[in-house]
Each structure stands twice: as C-alpha cells, then as structure tokens.
C-alpha cells in the first residue's frame, strides 16, 4: 500500500521513507514511542494530511487524488475524542451518517444497531460531554462504523481506559475482524498489540525498525526467554566469557536465550550465581530493546 512514504513539517522529517503493505482482512499494528511518526502515517492514509513524497495507495487508489472515494470506505477513530458536544449520543451518529449520504431511514436503523453493538442504547439521549471516558471511546467506535467501512483506522483506541473497557474494545475489534473488516491501529500497550495484531511494525524516528507477526518478531530479535539475575562485575565477566547475549538495566542483567533451562544451569554452575529468574519474552522486551529506554517527550 505504501512505498517510501515521506512526510516533512518544514525542516523536520516526521516520517522518513516507510514502506508497508496491509492485507485485506488483517489486523495491523503500528507500535513505537511518542513522536515515532505513527499518527502522521495514519493521517496520510486517512487522506487528512498530504504526503511530502513517496507512493501511497488505499484500496488501489492514489491517496492524493481520490480522497473522497477512499474516505467513503474508511472508518476513523482518532487519538483525541472529537465527538460533537452540541448533540446527543444518538444525534452524533445521525449527523455523521449525513456526511456519508446515508438515506435517513437506513441511517436510523444503522444507528440503533450500532448503539446496541457498543452498549450505549440507554444513553442515546445524553449529551456527549457527560459520558465517561470508556463510553466516549465506544461512541467514537460506533461513529467510525456508521458507513460500514472496509478499513477501520484506530489511533490508540484504548488509551486511558480501565481494564474492563479495554477488554470490551478488544472484543469488539475481534468481532469486526471476523466480519472481514481490515483493521489498522496504533498503540502503546504492547500486550494489546500482541493479543490483537496479525502483523505489526515497530517505528521510531520516522522509520520502520521491524515488521512481522508478534511471535516472529519476538523470536527473531530476542529469543523465547529471558533470564534475569543481579548485576555485579563478577557476573559480567563470566557472561562475557560465555559470549552470552545480555543487557544491563539498572542493577539487573537480562540474558536473552532460546534455551532458558540450559542457561540457568550453566550460570548456576559456572558463574556462582544465586538468585536467578527465568520468564518468557514479551513484546515489551523487544520494544524496549529496539527503541531504547530513554524517556521520550
């Protein structure tokens, strides 16, 4: 879909030559620290921000010349809630349906169906600013579905939600995927990405660092397991001698491996270690390993 896509704001290069293809019917994730260029990439695909250079096609159409056609078949959940505070829950959806030229009778039916789907039927006559965070997010999801989109774009769909609301959102997304909707999302929650995404990319500084399925990325970049132990000079010397792959984080050492049992035994016998824990690698380990631990603004 995108090839060598670039976006500059003046001197600043926000997206620096990314290429990716999203298949029909898959759930695709963009991961990366703040300022990595995820949202900018999404906004280019949504045809709300023109690209600086490169090639971008959505549904086989050029994003810079066919924006109306593309947007007709797309649903968007933005990062920041932008419900219309001048209207009730029901009116929000109905007014939105008019932007897609959905005939009113069909629209009313669709709105009832969607309110039921996101469990907001009881709130239909409430003004939107009195809704809770989770309800607002669900209403935005319903709004993005008003035109029965083939492609759903979600920018941090579960940010700020409690675990219940987050799981509900995940269930809804899985349901939509089963119906054949292609879903693209960005997220900071790595557990979310691991659970939901068929494939994902990790971005940083406007570039794509890795691409693949969550399992594949984990295996390729770290291994299946991590062995953690306390960091002291003796251990480091011993690890260096074994040519182990490790990283020092604060006062612990993390050793990456595919054979945790073997490594643990080895460390216990060769390096005189006492406290050792082994655990499975998560996407978070890969993420931190790839993008570093420095705090982002």
């Amino acid at each position, binding site marked *: 879909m995108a090839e060598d896509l670039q976006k500059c*704001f003046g001197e600043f290069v926000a997206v620096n030559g990314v290429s990716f293809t999203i298949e029909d019917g898959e759930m695709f994730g963009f991961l990366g620290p703040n300022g990595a260029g995820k949202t900018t990439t999404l906004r280019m695909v*949504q045809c*709300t*921000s*023109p690209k600086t250079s490169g090639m971008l096609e959505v549904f086989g159409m050029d994003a810079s010349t066919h*924006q*109306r*056609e593309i*947007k*007709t078949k*797309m649903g*968007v959940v*933005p990062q*920041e809630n*932008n*419900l*219309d*505070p*001048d*209207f009730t829950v029901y*009116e929000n959806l109905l*007014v*939105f349906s*008019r*932007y*897609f*030229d959905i005939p009113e009778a069909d629209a009313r039916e669709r709105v009832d169906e969607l309110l039921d789907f996101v469990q907001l039927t009881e709130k239909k006559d409430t003004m939107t600013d009195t809704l809770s965070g989770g309800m607002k997010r669900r209403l935005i999801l319903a709004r993005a579905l008003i*035109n029965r989109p083939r492609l759903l774009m979600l920018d941090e769909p579960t940010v700020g939600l409690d675990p219940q609301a987050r799981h509900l959102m995940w269930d809804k997304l899985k349901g939509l995927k089963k119906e054949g909707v292609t879903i693209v999302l960005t997220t900071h929650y790595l557990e979310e990405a691991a659970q939901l995404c068929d494939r994902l990319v990790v971005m940083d500084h406007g570039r794509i660092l890795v691409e693949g399925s969550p399992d594949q990325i984990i295996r390729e970049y770290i291994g299946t397991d991590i062995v953690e132990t306390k960091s002291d000079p003796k251990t480091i010397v011993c690890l260096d001698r074994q040519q182990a792959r490790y990283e020092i984080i604060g006062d612990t050492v993390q050793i990456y491996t595919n054979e945790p049992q073997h490594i643990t035994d080895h460390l216990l016998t060769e390096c005189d270690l006492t406290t050792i824990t082994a655990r499975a690698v998560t996407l978070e380990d890969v993420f931190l390993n790839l993008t570093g631990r420095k705090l982002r603004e």
Partner: protein
Amino acid sequence: MNIGLYFKVPNISFRALRVWQRNKDVFMKNVKLNFLPPFIEPMLYLFAMGFGLGMFIEDIDGVSYARFIAPALIAVSVMYASFFECSYGSYVRMHYQKTFESIIATPLTIEDVITGELLWGATRSMINATIMLPVIALFGLIDFPHSLLIIPFAFLAGLVFAALGLCVASVTPNIMSINYPILLFIMPMFLFSGTFFPLHVLPLPIQYFALAALPLTHVVIVIRSLTFGILDVSLLFNLAWMVAVCLILSVLAVNMMKKKLIV
C-alpha cells in the same frame, strides 16, 4: 510564499450543505433564545437613539432620525450575525470542539466544511434581517414591498462578513485575539459607514476610503435605499462591489483555513 495558493479554486461539493445542516440543527435546538436578540435589539436602539437622541436632531437628508438609522440597524445586525458566527463560532468549532477535524475524516473535504460554514453564516444574517423587518415595520419606518428585497440581499452581505470572520479565525493565535480585528475594523465600520450620520459630513478622502474598503458602507447604502422605497441604477455599483469582494474573500477564507488545518 506562494500567493496563488490563497486564490486556488476550491474543491467543493454539494456535501458542504451537510455542514450547513449541522449548524442549522444546533441553532434550532435553542431557536427561541437565538431569535430573541434580533427581536429586542432594534427596539432598544430605536427607543434610545431614534426617539431619544433623535429628539435633538433635525431631519437628516429630509427624513426623521429614526427613519434614517432604521436601515443601518438592519445592516449592522447583518454584519454582526455572520461575522461573529464565523469568527468566534467557527473558531470554537474548529479549535475547541474539533468538529472540523471529525468531519474531514468523512468524504467531505476541508473546502466543503468551510463553504458550509460560510453559507451558514450568511443564513444567520438573513434570519436576523427577516426578524428585524416586521419589528421595524411596526414603527412605520420602512417602505414595502421594496424592503422585502433586503432578505435576499442580507444573504449576500452576510457572506462577505462570514468570509471576513473565517479569515480572522484562520489567523488568530487564540480566541482572545479575535478582539483586535473587532476593535480595529468592525467597530470603526459600525460607526463610520454612514450608519448613524450621513457619509457626506466626513472629509472627502475618508468618504472614498469608506466606499473602497468598508463593506458595511455598501450594505447601508443598499438597505437604506430599499427601506426608502428607492431602486436606483447606482445600486448596481454597490451590488457589483459586494459580489466581487464576496468572491475574493470567500475563496481566500477557504484557502486560508485549508492552509491552517491541512498540514
């Protein structure tokens, strides 16, 4: 900077009407409250200035003071309605409510959205003029049927001030700063466009300036003629000026907003 960018022919579709419809729906939610100002305001002004201050004023150009300012009150209301709707109103919708952002995720372009705002601003001017006519007619200060032409004319005039308002909204750094163009442009226009005293008492250069640069001057001339029941060929000049400025400012408003919002 590329000047041509500001005068590009916008990519507009019939969908702009959906934005007009959205604003109309919000307006209708508080319709009674919204109808009150254009109903009360002319009465207050007429009592205070027309009949109060007017006691001390001889006839102006052969008409009573109340009859002289009545059309100006309509003109001023036409200006305020669309200018405020499309400066403060549009800025709130754009900046605080993110309404424009949510709409451009649908098949509408930003050009559609701004065009819808322009049309709605002009509609508000027309609504105000329509409500004021019967109120002022009650005092016997305007002639019919000529005055009925004020209603469609208010739409054109409203479009000019709506475009001005949107240009302001597109460059203002924050909502408080909208006060400056009001203080420096709208207020002087309110006072020096032949509204409360005839233009010809001002020095000649200022008269020319008012005719060349202040849209309200033309609006007052046209509405005053109509309320006096006069249809003169010279009004075509005012009308042509209005149409030309309306076109330029509308295209400018759409492109300035596009430049601001589509990055």
